[in-house]
């Protein structure tokens, strides 16, 4: 029997095909929930109204999750801050949920502990002193309940130190207003009724949602050194000096 090149190739081809004939996908598992959240449909994005806080202000958005995993923050048209839009901080908020540095545990000397450890440690320190060994580190708190609790704590522990820090805040703007007007004021779009306090927030000025940005007078953004200044009616480069109250003077002129 003569097997020439052509026939040999044909035989090879059919042998390869025959080998692959029994190739079927590997076995797969389906792992449902043990306890499925109410209203969830597997694989379908779920939206719910939520708030995230920035500088202590609660800001309303819609969160989108797929099978319990947050994937996107979107504007909530029915919330006065958002009016359907988001800002850069809200857009980035979803990443913070995947931040590996985010600790959800009680730590003791850098090691994971639990709330029982905290309670016993707390009794040891707070039970016998006036709180000189205790420091409270928080962001800005606006919740009346939390404020009342921390006031009560301070009353009980007079030497307690309380550190408040917000990486993004409107402290400078508030101090500037105090300097210029002798009291705290809130920026209002000219010729409009006072808007909610949402518009006085630092996020507003750092490319906030269109809801406020479009209504706020563009000159308010003048003098700022970050991105939103590019939309101003005029631009002035300023050094970040604490007593610089250019914006306020501009407004008064």
């Amino acid at each position, binding site marked *: *029997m003569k*097997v020439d090149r052509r*026939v040999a190739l*044909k*035989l090879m*081809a*059919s*042998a390869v*095909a*025959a080998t692959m*004939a*029994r190739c*079927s*996908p590997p*076995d*797969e*598992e*389906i*792992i*449902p*929930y*043990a*306890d*499925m959240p109410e209203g969830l*449909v*597997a*694989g*379908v994005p779920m939206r719910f109204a939520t708030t995230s806080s920035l500088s202590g202000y609660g800001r309303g958005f819609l969160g989108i999750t797929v099978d319990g995993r947050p994937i996107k923050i979107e504007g909530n048209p029915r919330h006065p801050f958002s009016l359907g839009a988001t800002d850069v901080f809200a857009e980035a908020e979803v990443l913070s949920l995947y931040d590996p540095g985010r600790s959800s545990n009680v730590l003791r000397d850098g090691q994971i502990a639990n709330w029982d450890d905290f309670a016993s440690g707390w009794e040891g320190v707070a039970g016998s002193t006036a709180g000189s060994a205790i420091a409270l580190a928080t962001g800005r708190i606006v919740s009346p309940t939390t404020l009342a609790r921390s006031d009560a704590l301070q009353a009980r522990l007079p030497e307690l130190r309380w550190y408040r820090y917000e990486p993004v805040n409107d402290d400078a703007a508030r101090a500037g207003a105090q300097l210029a007007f002798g009291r705290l004021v809130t920026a209002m779009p000219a010729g409009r009724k006072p808007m909610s306090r949402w518009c006085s927030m630092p996020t507003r000025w750092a490319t906030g949602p269109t809801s406020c940005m479009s209504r706020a007078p563009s000159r308010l953004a003048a003098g700022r050194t970050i991105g939103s200044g590019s939309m101003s009616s005029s631009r002035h480069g300023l050094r970040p000096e604490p007593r610089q109250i250019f914006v306020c003077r501009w407004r008064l002129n």
Partner: protein
Amino acid sequence: MASVALMGAGLTYLIWKSPYATNQRLTRGQPVPFSHAHHAGDLGLHCRMCHTGVEKAAFAGLPSTHICMACHSQIWTNAAMLAPVRQSLKTGTPLHWQRVNRLPDYVFFDHSVHIANGVGCSTCHGPVQDMALMRQQEPLTMGWCLQCHRHPERYVRPRNRVFDMAWQAPADQATQGARLVKEYHIDAAHLTDCSTCHP
């Protein structure tokens, strides 16, 4: 010699199509020997009781442990075969089921759109109400899908019969089906577009 190659190719094709290759009628081991014959057949539970996503999502969904235990916290509470379910409830660890009906990852299949367009459960899954242990009834090959995508009028049924496991095509399915295809606005011309299933 050429005929040998031809026979080889023919044999290969037959193996390819055979239940041996498509995994049809293969009964897989499951953590709990759940019987559709008992639950769907004897008791007459509705498909949607456990497959809650079937009308709303691509994936029909498998019941959470809590759905199983909605009944089994009351009945058969000490049955040995349900021990894995109770264990799952206790520990919060889900059951790991073996998938029976599997499509390749490059196929997009959506249960909800088929349900909405009058394709019944039994058309693809067969007489589930008679299966003590679940098995794949149909080959789930592309050629098999195309039988319906080319001629949906042969398979579609009234929407209120979609979950009816006893439904049989009526004698006048040709006219009934054609009427339903029109009623459901099924555009048969585009059902065989590649991108319909391979987006």
